[in-house]
């Protein structure tokens, strides 16, 4: 089997063995979203206005929470050394890990978000845009995230340091994503915001794997 495929397959297989793991990324998302009305109060009109923001922030947090797992176990048990010594180019291997991460953390969020959106009283059009914005936005989150994950590898205080590095970079994605959903209420059309999300993806796709693999080499030195 091709090494890229092998990495991808192994990550999925491991996730399958640890089903609880990615199922709970997903539950985390659901729970965080459900917490807000509790804290903020139950007026439907207000909840409807803040819904896109809350859903997107929760997606950001959920994606971020699952980041440390991307390299951590490989680092701790020495498998990362072996990946670095693979004849295959490292950025491609990283890309294949990133894809697995997205499939396991991003896609479920995009699928669940519409249901939660309905609970907050969003209308069908807004929910549709929410879905597409998440489907475009979550790969960016994964790509930016793995760079952060690689940079904080084996660093004292990694787990939370990652939040500090990654969240600021997530901000544009958040603004375009939540913005896209909000346009539906204001009636200005979501296409602009969605294409900006697409642009983020196009920038992150070639850069992130390269950055992450440079960071990995440094981490193992």
């Amino acid at each position, binding site marked *: 089997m091709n090494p890229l495929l092998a990495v991808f397959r192994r990550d999925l297989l491991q996730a399958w063995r*640890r*089903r*609880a793991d990615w*199922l*709970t990324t997903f*539950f985390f998302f659901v*729970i965080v979203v*459900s917490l807000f*009305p*509790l804290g903020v*109060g*139950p007026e*439907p009109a207000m909840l409807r206005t803040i819904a896109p923001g809350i859903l997107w922030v929760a997606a950001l947090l959920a994606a971020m929470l699952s980041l440390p797992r991307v390299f951590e176990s490989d680092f701790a048990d020495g498998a990362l050394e072996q990946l670095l010594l693979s004849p295959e180019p490292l950025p491609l291997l990283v890309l294949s890990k990133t894809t697995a991460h997205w499939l396991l953390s991003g896609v479920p969020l995009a699928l669940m978000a519409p249901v939660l959106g*309905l*609970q907050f*009283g969003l209308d069908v059009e807004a929910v549709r845009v929410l879905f597409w914005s998440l489907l475009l936005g979550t790969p960016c989150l994964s790509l930016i995230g793995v760079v952060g994950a690689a940079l904080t590898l084996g660093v004292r205080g990694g787990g939370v340091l990652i939040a500090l590095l990654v969240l600021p970079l997530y901000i544009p994605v958040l603004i375009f994503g939540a913005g896209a959903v909000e346009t539906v209420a204001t009636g200005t059309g979501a296409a602009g915001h969605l294409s900006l999300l697409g642009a983020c993806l196009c920038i992150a796709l070639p850069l992130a794997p390269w950055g992450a693999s440079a960071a990995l080499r440094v981490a193992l030195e």
Partner: protein
Amino acid sequence: MNWFKFSSPQTFYPLAGRLIPVFWVLAVVLAVAGLYIGFFVAPTDFQQGDAYRIIFIHVPAAWMSMFIYLVMAGWAALGLVLNTRLSSMMASALAPTGALMTFIALWTGSFWGRPTWGTWWVWDARLTSELILLFLYIGFMALHASIDEPRRADKAAAILAIVGVVNVPIIYFSVKWWNTLHQGASVSLTRAPSMATTMLLGMLVMAIAFWMYSIAAALSRVRSIILERERNSAWIGQLQESR
């Protein structure tokens, strides 16, 4: 009669096998009767019209969701303290039924909320604490599923179940402690019920039907758990041979 005899899976297994059909029959008969009373005998409500008839499913399910949790936590605690295998199996057999009941209560409740409150969902204390109950059930099952060794899984899940018991009184008393959209208890042992007798009758019959169903479902599940966990023991081998 020696009750401890039935605390071993080996003796419990055939007993449960004999009891299950009885409970199933009772459940079906009572459910049919209850639904008949609920949908054909009970009068239409002058405020809510026919929408109120959801009560015949909603309230029994809500009661069961809380009660099953208590029973489950009780079995789990027993398993933790006395280290009896069967108690822990009972606890894990009850969890999915409890989660189902919680889900039904939530589902029918929000279905009911649409015509009466004008919204599917509000974040008031009772609704929220019921939602927490669902999460506790899911947490119990998830924790159990993510530990391979059954005995360790039992113990860990038991601790969670015990800690979560705190939530049940909160659900029950939430309508009293906070003034909420959800209505307070109208069935109580200490004073006369504030609803029509036929309605009350229908609700009680449905509640018993839900009981019977829960017992039947839990018993069948515990039987399959026993089969799975004790697959290497001698008596299961004999059981298979005797088939």
